[in-house]
């Protein structure tokens, strides 16, 4: 099958440009001579199959993207993202986004192969009042997952994965980015939550990105910021969804009168709801349970760091396990994802080499990972 070398070279160059890497850097990281890389990018030399595999590994994409015309990589989506928000993504962040997309693609493949694909939550908004869309969708999703008005989902990440979103938490250097949503051509709806932020803010961000998955799934990609840039009604709707999903208005209405709360009461309720005081202050004002002044006061309070619970780093872990798992979680490796990878290996869906790739590791590092997650690598 003939290969269009010009097209192949252009794809490689675009990827390199997106990741803001020089030819010399890619050369050093892949062991491919820089001059040869330039020739390949110019369409003047045909890469070997191994060079294609090495570059696909470096750019963390399906190698088929380079040797066919199939849209198997989310290249257009990241292109859209960086055209609109390029200045907000450092080189390290772009690499993080690339890894995140690779994890999403792998997760979608493994879930399908293991027969665990989630049923996508669908919601049809009515009317033009976008805040109401958020409220109604939050109510519908809570109901679909069996939550009554007085129940608060503990592990929201798990809830949103069940609703068909590939959700990963990943450290991003830009602390103003709370998360992003990408419609992956193969994996579908993918959401990234910035792990650099406070645990409860991440929880809210996950719900915010879930809203984008529900309402804005037709868009290629979107970025959410902690400090909104201009008045974007889609962002307002996503925030309203997140607020109502985590703090249902019916639940807030049943609380002891918030106007009489002390600051400690406010912190306690935020802690019980596993939200920031900032989010709780806004939700109470929206529910007309406090005035602007009191809302602002509550928004300034803080739940103590050691009182916050991360469902993906449970208290049951030892300190060493917790530290190691936290480091892996920062890279996007959640318990859910790691478990899925090991299950796929155990079931014979993937080989050990693919398992190592899926876990962003070398084969030599697998034994340590298996032991940390209580898995075994026997079965050669």
């Amino acid at each position, binding site marked *: 099958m003939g290969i269009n070398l010009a097209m192949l070279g252009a794809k490689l160059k675009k990827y390199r440009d997106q990741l803001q890497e020089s030819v010399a850097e890619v050369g050093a990281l892949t062991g491919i001579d820089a001059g040869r890389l330039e020739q390949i990018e110019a369409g003047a030399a045909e890469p070997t*199959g191994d060079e294609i595999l090495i570059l696909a590994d470096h750019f963390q994409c399906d190698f088929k993207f380079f040797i066919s015309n199939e849209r198997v990589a989310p290249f257009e989506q990241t292109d859209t993202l960086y055209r609109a928000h390029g200045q907000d993504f450092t080189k390290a962040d772009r690499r993080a986004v690339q890894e995140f997309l690779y994890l999403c693609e792998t997760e979608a493949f493994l879930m399908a192969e293991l027969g665990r694909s989630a049923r996508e939550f669908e919601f049809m908004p009515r009317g033009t009042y976008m805040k109401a869309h958020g409220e109604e969708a939050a109510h519908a999703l809570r109901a679909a997952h069996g939550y009554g008005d007085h129940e608060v989902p503990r592990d929201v990440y798990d809830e949103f994965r069940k609703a068909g979103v590939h959700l990963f938490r990943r450290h991003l250097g830009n602390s103003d980015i709370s998360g992003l949503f990408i419609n992956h051509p193969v994996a579908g709806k993918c959401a990234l939550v910035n792990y650099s932020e406070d645990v409860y803010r991440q929880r809210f961000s996950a719900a915010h990105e879930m809203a984008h998955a529900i309402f804005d799934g037709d868009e290629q990609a979107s970025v959410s910021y902690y400090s909104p840039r201009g008045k974007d009604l889609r962002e307002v709707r996503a925030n309203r969804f997140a607020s109502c999903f985590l703090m249902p208005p019916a639940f807030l209405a049943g609380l002891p009168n918030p106007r009489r709360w002390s600051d400690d009461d406010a912190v306690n309720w935020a802690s019980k709801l596993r939200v920031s005081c900032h989010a709780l202050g806004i939700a109470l004002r929206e529910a007309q349970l406090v005035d602007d002044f009191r809302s602002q006061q509550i928004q300034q309070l803080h739940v103590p760091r050691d009182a916050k619970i991360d469902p993906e780093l449970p208290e049951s872990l030892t300190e060493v396990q917790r530290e190691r798992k936290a480091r892996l979680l920062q890279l996007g490796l959640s318990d859910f994802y790691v478990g899925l990878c090991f299950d796929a290996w155990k079931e014979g869906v993937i080989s050990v080499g693919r398992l190592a790739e899926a876990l962003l590791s070398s084969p*030599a590092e697998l034994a340590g990972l298996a032991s940390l997650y209580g898995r075994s690598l026997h079965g050669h």
Partner: protein
Amino acid sequence: MAIDPSKFHLINVADTCSVWNVLSSQRLYSAAKEARCDFCITEFVRYECLVKPRKAPSAADDKLIKRLTTEQGRGAFRAHACSIDDLQAIELLEKRNRLGKGELSSIAFAMKIRQAVITDDQKARRLASDAGHALVQTTPHLFSWLMFTGKLGDSDKVLVIQQHEEMDQDLAPHFEKAYTMALECKLNSVPRG
């Protein structure tokens, strides 16, 4: 593990795990060389073994890397490349999400040169065979064959396993089984009078 200790294909394309397993025991590797076994790798496997950055390489990793580099300097484990056409084999494209890229390139290259792939992962062996390449071998099979042919003696078994474990590799139970299989095969092959 269905292997025939009396047979072993001499020319092998090694994937990443098997490179480390073969080199993990110097006694095993020297016996393999003496028996004229030849191991080559693909460019991708070379990249995975020697170029791709690792998070926290152990002392054993460093030793194995040094052994591979030394052996390459002696002309062994030479790196070859498969072509884009080799990768485009439909069976391989279909399996691309199930196999690691090192395994994929090793199978593609072994298919091209019609030689054996040596891989120590059960799933990779099955997937290689599903992808249309039946000539798949393992490091325990190599060990078993070396035992059967007398290139390794009984006293070498403990040493091979000890050296292998010192390099943090995990095939010891399979070496034990392979040893037993070699003995059984040897017994069965003795003409009865």
